[in-house]
């Protein structure tokens, strides 16, 4: 959990650094009076790595994925509860009332 959060923060920092590098690079190009065609290779690599880290963190940090299949082990129906609308009170438990000593 904590690792996911740290990886996410690191990914955002890498993306920010890529943006800052691009701004620096454009400033440098203006000084040299050259056309801006594409960001340098290291900035592109930073973008890809930052995106990958952010996506991984977004998928793992908030929580585990739950299964949506009705027949998976978590989702399968194990029992139907007693029909509470038709509950009756004169059952065999009447002969063995619980020893509740609490008063109310």
């Amino acid at each position, binding site marked *: 959990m904590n690792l996911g959060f740290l990886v996410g923060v690191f990914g955002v920092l890498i993306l920010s650094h890529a943006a800052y590098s691009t701004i620096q690079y454009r400033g440098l190009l203006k000084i040299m009076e050259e056309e801006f065609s594409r960001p340098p290779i290291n900035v592109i690599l930073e973008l890809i790595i930052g995106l990958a880290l952010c996506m991984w963190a977004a998928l793992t940090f908030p929580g585990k994925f739950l299964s949506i299949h009705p027949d998976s082990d*978590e989702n399968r129906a194990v*029992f139907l509860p007693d029909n*509470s609308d038709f509950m009756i009170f004169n059952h065999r438990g009447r002969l063995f009332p619980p020893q509740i000593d609490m008063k109310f």
Partner: protein
Amino acid sequence: MVTKTEEIQLNQLENQVENGGGGVWEYLCLVRKLKVRRSEIVLKHGLSILNDSGKRSALGPDEWTLYEQVAIAAMDCQSLGVAQNCIKVLKKKFPESKRVGKLEALLLEAKGMWEEAEKAYTSLLEDNPLDQVIHKRKVAMAKAQGKSSLAIEHLNKYLEVFMADHDAWRELAEIYVSLQMYKQAAFCYEELILTQPTLPLYHLAYADVLYTIGGLENLIAARKYYAATIDLTGGKSTRALLGICLCGSAIAQISKGRNKEDKDMAAPELQSLAATALEREYKQKAPAKLNLLTSALRNLKIA
């Protein structure tokens, strides 16, 4: 219906509550949400909250829901004094409430005062003739007095008006099964499968009823519904696996003297596969009983 995840959560909270680890209110909410019947634990720990005025006031408006829950649990545990006191508190807070009126009638039922309860329900029905809960209580009252035919009659009338109520269909099916009226029970389970086709427990119950009725056609249909149960539970229904083995054996016995082929192509494979799955599951969960299962399957001439 309760899923595996919810069952695990319920059991964990129950253990925590019983061992004094807190989480009582979460447990009571889960019991209410899943509609399970844990009256003794609800009564004990609900009373501990109600007797603590600090905890009680911390609940806010949920306090009255807890009173209702504890009152019903107290009736189920035959602690009628506690139930009466809870209802008294609710009546003081909500003097004109129909919901509290229903609780009072429920208390009359628990005391065995059937005539007074009948009068109370009749007067409540005069104000609201389509109240489903009161109609159901009439059915439950007939069942509690042992008048099964009256309960069936009431349920049939109820289902003519509220035909989508699957709880009522289930109750009717269970009453028919208890009276060994299996054809009527099969019809009820067919209705349940029509309304909720993805619930494996209805397929399982229907297959059990068909197997009980017997006959070649019913056994073949029962095997199909056992297979549907296995499909819908991801292979985790031990009862359905046993059902397939028993159906296969019964079908083979009926078809033997008749020189009649089993039309289902997958039948022999189905039986052996079910037997293999059963053996694997017993090896995992109950190794001491594996020999018992193996000899039983050998008696059925399977695998």
